[in-house]
């Protein structure tokens, strides 16, 4: 659905660009978008992902689907995201490998 929700999309992208430097403060780093089924959440999420991907700011995405066992499993959400993050941000991958090397016997 190209060309829809342009304003909302812009708001979200602006929010992503807006980083707070103060480490101690709580950040409003989570954005919850909600609405009735069929209102266009998934379509908006796709548009957001496309833009963030182009800007190289998409660390990872997970599109849940109730009727797909792999996509409705909460235990696979975090590992998928972490794996993607490691792919997109090498220092994270390095640290991950170090920690795994020391914790695994």
């Amino acid at each position, binding site marked *: 659905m190209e060309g829809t929700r342009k304003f909302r999309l812009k708001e979200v992208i602006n929010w992503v660009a807006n980083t707070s430097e103060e480490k101690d403060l709580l950040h409003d780093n989570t954005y919850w978008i*909600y609405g009735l089924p069929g*209102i266009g959440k998934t379509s908006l999420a796709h548009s957001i992902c496309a833009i963030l991907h182009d800007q190289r700011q998409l660390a990872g995405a997970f599109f849940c689907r109730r009727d797909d066992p792999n996509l*409705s499993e909460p235990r696979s959400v975090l590992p998928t995201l972490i794996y993607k993050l490691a792919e997109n941000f090498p220092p994270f991958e390095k640290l*991950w490998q170090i920690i795994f090397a020391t914790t695994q016997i």
Partner: protein
Amino acid sequence: MKGSLFLELLDNLPYGPSNSLVFVIDAFDECGNNRSRPALLRLLNSAAASASWLKIIITSRPEGDIQRVFDELSQSSYLRYDLAKDQEASHDLRTFAQSEFGLVAQDWYFSPPWPEESLLDKLISRANGLFIFIKTLALALEHCADPTEFLKTTSEEAGAGLKPLYRLYSNVLKSRIVHSNSEFQRVIGVLLTVAPHRALCEETIAELAGVGPNLVKKWVKDLNSLLSRDEGTNRGIRVRHLSISEFLVSDDCPYIYQINLQDANVELGIACLKTMVSQLRFNICGIEDSRLANADIEDLPFRIRENISDSLQYSTLYWSNHLCFTPDGNNRRVWESLKEFFEGLCPLFWVEVLSLMGMVPKGVPCIRKVSSWAKVSPTPACIQSDLIGCRMGIRPFMKGFRTFVVSWLLFKPPSLSALHTPIFQRDPSCPHTRLYQTPSGRDLLNPSRWWEGNCRLGPHRHWSGLGILRVSRA
């Protein structure tokens, strides 16, 4: 990876990326359940709060459990946005509708503007902001006898929230499915109940629903606005949108199309058992030497495809999920099908098929599920006297022994002489008296590992009678 470890990793990162990185999670309400979601959501939020460069976007329905987690969180740690309040939405919806209907108009050689402005206005207001409404409508028009009339009927269905959408789904069904309502219900019943496990293609749906494949294909084509093919997995058929399955099981769905999930599951469970009873057989893949491990059979995937039908593959994996869907069903047909399955050699052949597919670990919870279901389910009087107990299991017999026990006698054997049928005798010459073997004693310590690849019924071994020991004690 544990969530706490992830947080620790984030804390220990020497530096973050120069631009923020974002996780996007769509349709979070479609993941897990109201017990598993909150913990994950809290963890995600703390991850985003602990690393200033990490941002998380979550979309979902306003479900109670998700709402509660956000209500508990500090207001400053997140943003929330209700899409229904989106000012530009109705404008967007209009643009979207115009482009979708424009394509329909082209198809039908309607001269623009079609539909007329006033009709379009009405339709937009019926949509209540739901894009899926317009999308479904446009798809339904493709197969419609009179698009303008269909739009007019649809525009008259007023109501709040999801009501007009559900009315639209009803109208699509009414216009497309005229005959064979019980067969239609069986087909949709299979389609909805298999969905959480694996989408199936038309032929397999037809087989499990006991309906001709041509009928299923026709309906899938006719209901193009509600159903679609999942090109990814097995080219199975799925509903286009979750709201369609929710509609089909709700009271908003006309009675003749409505699906009762409990009944549909029981029916499918019985169909799975029947499929297994009729298709399972000794050495189903025709493997020449039973001592070969799965990994050593080069053309195993080909043999599986050729010899184990899709309906059998599905049935062996998920029969217990469907059968035990109703926690304490009192259904004579279920018990009779169970009896039929467990009285023969099917359980052994079943384990063999699981092994060939590398799915034996799935068999264990399957048996457990049936066992505990059988304990709480009222047994019909005609079967009660035959019920021995629920002693079923797949387990290694003893450490160091190269054998494991498949014990499955749920029912009393038809006669005492059944106890002396070849399967229970120490008769190495009988082809059925095979034993599951493990490659080495060491692997026994890790049962799930050898189960996956290496159980096979072999003619050179005999059924040691361990199974009978277990049963006769019961």
